[in-house]
């Protein structure tokens, strides 16, 4: 798969209910006020549904930034 940051962006905007949100590969949860632990789960579910993938528990726990999510998506 070749999924880019532009493909992830709309999901973040929708789940975090913030249309002005700009994410980059280096964005971390602490940078975005709406990105709390609850919304993190919604993000995982939304990304899994959109790209028809299933992350492992280990993958989800190892993410440090948006770039890590992209890396796992493109594996």
């Amino acid at each position, binding site marked *: 798969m070749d999924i880019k940051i532009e493909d992830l962006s709309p999901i973040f905007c929708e789940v975090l209910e913030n249309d002005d949100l700009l994410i980059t590969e280096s964005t971390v949860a602490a940078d975005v006020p709406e990105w709390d*632990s*609850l919304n993190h*789960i*919604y993000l995982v*579910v939304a990304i899994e549904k959109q790209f028809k993938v299933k992350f492992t*528990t280990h993958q989800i*726990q190892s993410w440090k930034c948006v770039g890590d999510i992209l890396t796992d998506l493109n594996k």
Partner: protein
Amino acid sequence: MKIAIIGNYATQFFHKSLLRKLKKNHSDIQMYQSEFNTIDIELLDIHSGLFQFEPDYIIWHESTLGLRDTFYQSITENRVEFALNYQARIEGYLNTISINLPGTKVIFPNHGINFDDKVFGNFSLKVESSWMFQRNKINTSINQLALQFSNFYPMESQPSTNELVVTDYSMVVNAELHFSPDYLDWLSESVLKTIEAFRGQFKKCIILDLDNTLWGGIIGDDGLENIHIGTLGIGKAFTRLQKWLKELKNRGIILAVCSKNNEDIAKSAFEQHPEMVLKLEDIAVFMANWNSKADNINQIQKILNIGFDSMVFIDDNPAEREIVRTHIPKILVPELPLDPADYLPFLISQNIFETVSYSNNDSERTRQYQEESKRVAFSQSITNMDDYLLSLNMRAVISNFQSFDIERIAQLSQRSNQFNLRTKRYSIQDIENIMNNENYLTFSVHLHDKFGSYGLISMVIVKIEENTAFIDTWIMSCRVLKRTVEHLLMNLIVSKLIERKIDIIKGEYLPTDKNMLVEHLLSELAMDKLDEHNYQLKISKYIPLKHFINY
């Protein structure tokens, strides 16, 4: 409306999903969410946040996976007692809730989801100390508690479709989220229906198309003997659907027919076809003609006198469904699947007919509506209203609330939207409390006339506060509008108040978008209007109102 959620898993998703759905139709929502896994702490302490919140509804959701963890922690020797101990725990808390929050209803998704651990394989059902044996026993005890506590409402937690992922184990590990967001969305929808039913919003009538909906084929073209029902062709699918509809009818859902057909031909199937499950006497209103379905449904609504939002229309034809939806937006029109074999499982999965009460009286409803059709025909032959009312030979039995009527009374308070002065909803438990409180005068009315019995048709609750009386509730079935029942009742209320030496009765009209019918009721009952919604009457000035009812 105040709703509290308590659970032994991360309930935030459930909370969020339910709140979003409630907000669509209600503006007055307050919600309370207990901290993670604090069910026992909230319920043991009657000064806890939960008790102080005084919720109308407690949604008590225990994860079965969490229960299994608790089971594993218990020592082996105690496991045969696991279900018994669990039952004692729930029972204790329900007692505390009944005493300290007497009006609160407890909604409890049961442990219907399997979570079989296969430790003993299939043999577990023969091992009393196994998880599966004890889990099954717990569900049985929950059923028992439901019979014991009138404020306890368990509900099925297992979706009727297998397409839903109930638990995403990655979420369990990462977030203590024992249920997938999709499942919690399903569950919140299910809980919402129960809450709406408590508030009087539920379906009362199902309107059925005939050709290719109740049987296969087109009776007008194919002929009576060639329609698919029973053993012919795909008839089994329709037979099963009809059996289910008959069960609904026996429960008290009104069945009506709306079909583009020649009436005689359409009725012949019900009268003559040996394999038809539904018979003519199961159908309250039969509309088979060539008029538009929207017009026919309007006619059905006039005869039944219930809101469009309590009706469901079933038709295999997408064009007819769209026409009805466009003309009558409030009616529910399910998008039937293409294959008739899927009609019934689809309708079941939609859980359309939620309710929060049941009494044997419900099954009488179809007969009552059929009698009503006869009355309509009879009234058209008489021109003078007084003569008509006299000729009905009406007789009423009026008493204070009796224990054998409690269910029906609670139900009337939950079902009635139109002739309902203040739209206060009462549960069985609330009614019992009122009956035992001498500061309340209660009136229930059973009415019959020469065409048959209407059953319980009216209830009034008058609250006595020192030297004045207040009309807390005045409800009447719309089937007996303009029969002067309310006049007779007012005469009786006044005479009771005279016995109690009370000289002032006050009343209030609380408008909703459905009870315009009683906007002027209190004026008609000779009460003086004080302001927009408040009324008062000096008993000594009361002149008895005219009525036509023997009692």
